[in-house]
């Protein structure tokens, strides 16, 4: 039995027994090798579920909208499961709100190029970190050689080059907020960009305002980022957003000790919501 068969069978059972009110997975899209997220509540739809190497979307964020309808069943790989851990730690959902069917993942493939997705090449945890049952076995995957290679690449540039690099990034941004909407860390009830009365960020699209949005988002999610790379994948302008997130993660590691967010439910506080008397002193 393939993982896909198991997922279909279990989804049907869970929905029929009423244990979950809705089930989240993937279905085939219109085009060859395309998949799209699928949310079902009718057991008869379970056969639409697919699982293959073209499942590019991360599903965790959907749970937030679905929990009010009852318990949610969900297929989780490494990235999805860490998203769920994130939502639980951030108290968006509770552990008992979700039923997780884990599945090992060997990395998704870009349907256009046939190459593995960038986010999957860089993935360090391809097997679920949390789940209720596994469909199939865990999958071995090569660890990426250097987690912060792309950060170092930018750091090696001279200062004016770096500012030009990021200015061109912000010049391209159209502020569609897809990076925010897909991110399992971005769960504010009202995002600062939507708070028009406070007017944190202006509505005009220019480098300065786009930088304001970009930097604020990085600071908001920096110590919680699960490195799923979805923001970068969904960006319609292909902006290198993980270069920013990983910079913060790298600095957190250097300054406050090795840390990887959302690996288990009982991890300590994130580096930026705590402190240590012995922290390095740079501002004397």
């Amino acid at each position, binding site marked *: 039995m393939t993982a896909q068969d198991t997922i279909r069978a279990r989804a049907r059972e869970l929905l029929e027994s009423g244990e979950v009110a809705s089930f989240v997975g993937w279905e085939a899209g219109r085009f060859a090798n395309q998949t799209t997220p699928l949310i079902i509540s009718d057991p008869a739809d379970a056969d639409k579920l697919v699982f293959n190497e073209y499942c590019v979307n991360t599903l965790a964020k959907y749970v937030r909208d679905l929990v009010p309808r009852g318990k949610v069943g969900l297929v989780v790989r490494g990235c999805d499961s860490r998203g769920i851990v994130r939502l639980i730690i951030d108290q968006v959902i509770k552990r008992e709100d979700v039923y997780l069917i884990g599945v090992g993942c060997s990395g998704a493939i870009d349907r256009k190029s046939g190459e593995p997705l960038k986010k999957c090449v860089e993935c360090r945890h391809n097997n679920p970190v949390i789940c209720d049952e596994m469909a199939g076995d865990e999958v071995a995957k090569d660890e990426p050689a250097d987690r912060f290679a792309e950060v170092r690449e930018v750091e090696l540039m001279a200062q004016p080059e770096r500012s030009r690099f990021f200015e061109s990034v912000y010049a391209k941004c159209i502020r569609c907020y897809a990076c925010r909407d897909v991110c399992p860390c971005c769960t504010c009830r009202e995002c600062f960009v939507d708070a028009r009365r406070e007017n944190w960020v202006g509505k005009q699209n220019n480098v300065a305002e786009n*930088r*304001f949005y970009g*930097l*604020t988002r990085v*600071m908001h999610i920096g110590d919680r980022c699960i490195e799923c790379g979805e923001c970068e994948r969904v960006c319609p302008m292909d902006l290198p957003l993980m270069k*920013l997130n990983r*910079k913060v993660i790298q600095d957190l590691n250097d300054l406050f000790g090795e840390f990887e967010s959302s690996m288990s439910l009982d991890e300590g506080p994130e580096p930026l919501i705590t*402190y240590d008397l012995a*922290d390095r002193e740079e501002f004397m």
Partner: protein
Amino acid sequence: MSVVEANGAAAQVPENWEPKIIAFCCHWCTYTGADLAGLNRMNYPANVRVLRIPCSGRMNPQYVIEALNKGCDGVLVCGCHPGDCHYVTGNYFARRRMMIFKRLLEYEGLEPDRFQVRWISGAEAGKFRDTVMSVVEQVRALGPLNLTREIPYFELPAVPDGEEAFDAVPEEVVPEEVSA
């Protein structure tokens, strides 16, 4: 060759350019220290505008970006010495946050001297003066901010009553008995 020329920014430095710097000062220590500097009649450059915040832990990274976007050339954040925070731990959080944020800004191409954080107590009027003077000189050497900001987009004609008016207290907040 002046420092500005060495910096390569000489061509863009307008005549009579003065750096504009915002200092976010913690109410309990640095703001009091600045007050003491004033009481002691210490001289320091008028390029710095002091803004009071309740605690350095209240310092929102967005304030820094907004200040740079809206026309400042440098930002200084000051708070109580670690261990002296009026709210006990505020500056410990600020320390972590600002360490990360400073590195992030430098990563994006901001010169390190343009964003500085210092711990200055209520008694350290001299340190406040020295810090302000050194920040002003460092930013002056760097020249105007080299990041794209909102101001060029704004493209307003000069304020009718001169640039001084913008630097002065806006008339609408001047208490009546003063203006009368």
